[in-house]
């Protein structure tokens, strides 16, 4: 897997920690990223700021 740049906390400007991946299914009206053919859903990354604790997510690519 190619290393992606860390998410930057919009509050603190520091690199966030990527601590989780979760499989999501397009069951609601939230934006969904492309469907992974193996998992049959979209994979989302979850990140937390080590300074303020704020959470962020982005699609796994």
């Amino acid at each position, binding site marked *: 897997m190619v290393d992606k740049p860390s998410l930057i906390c919009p509050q603190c400007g520091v690199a966030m920690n990527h*601590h989780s991946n979760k499989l999501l299914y397009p069951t609601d009206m939230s934006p969904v990223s492309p469907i992974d053919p193996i998992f049959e859903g979209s994979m989302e990354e979850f990140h937390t700021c080590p300074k303020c604790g*704020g959470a962020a997510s982005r699609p796994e690519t």
Partner: protein
Amino acid sequence: MTDVPQRPLFIPVILGTTRQGRMSAHAAELIRNELGKRLAIDTELIDIAKLSLPTQDAGQAIKDPRFAAAMNKADALVLVVPEYNHGYPGLLKHVLDSCLKEYIHKAVGIAGVSAGSFGGARAIENLLPVLRELGLITIFWDVNFSNVQKTFSPQGKLLNETFIPQIEKFLNELIWMAKTLRHGRERIPID
């Protein structure tokens, strides 16, 4: 203990019912009070009756910004959940479904409330798989407010002091898990 986090843990208490005359409000206030006595813990009561979430079910698109901000800031949650017809309140599920990233790898403890003798145990068991899918980490301690009409006066005074040590054990576990998971979220990468 000298293990004080660099910023206070934030552990809101969610009153998970909108029903008129709800005795769960007394249970939620009691737990919020006990949490408020702890060092380095910030808390607040979130009453789902005060959230304005539309009912045309659009998942996370209906996010209440204040609720989402509180979930984002939270290190752990306490859910106060009455048992209605052996289940948890549907509106609590509606509220919980409005967020996701805000919950991932955060601790949650549940206080069940019922008029009967089981203290909301069936509602708690039904809720566990939902919380798991939301990315929350459940603790193995619950508080079971059984016979709630006899547990609190109509004004909310606790009439059964045995709940205090139960809440103490419950909060000890929840706070330990909150500290541990905060460390993991902020410091330990997944790969």
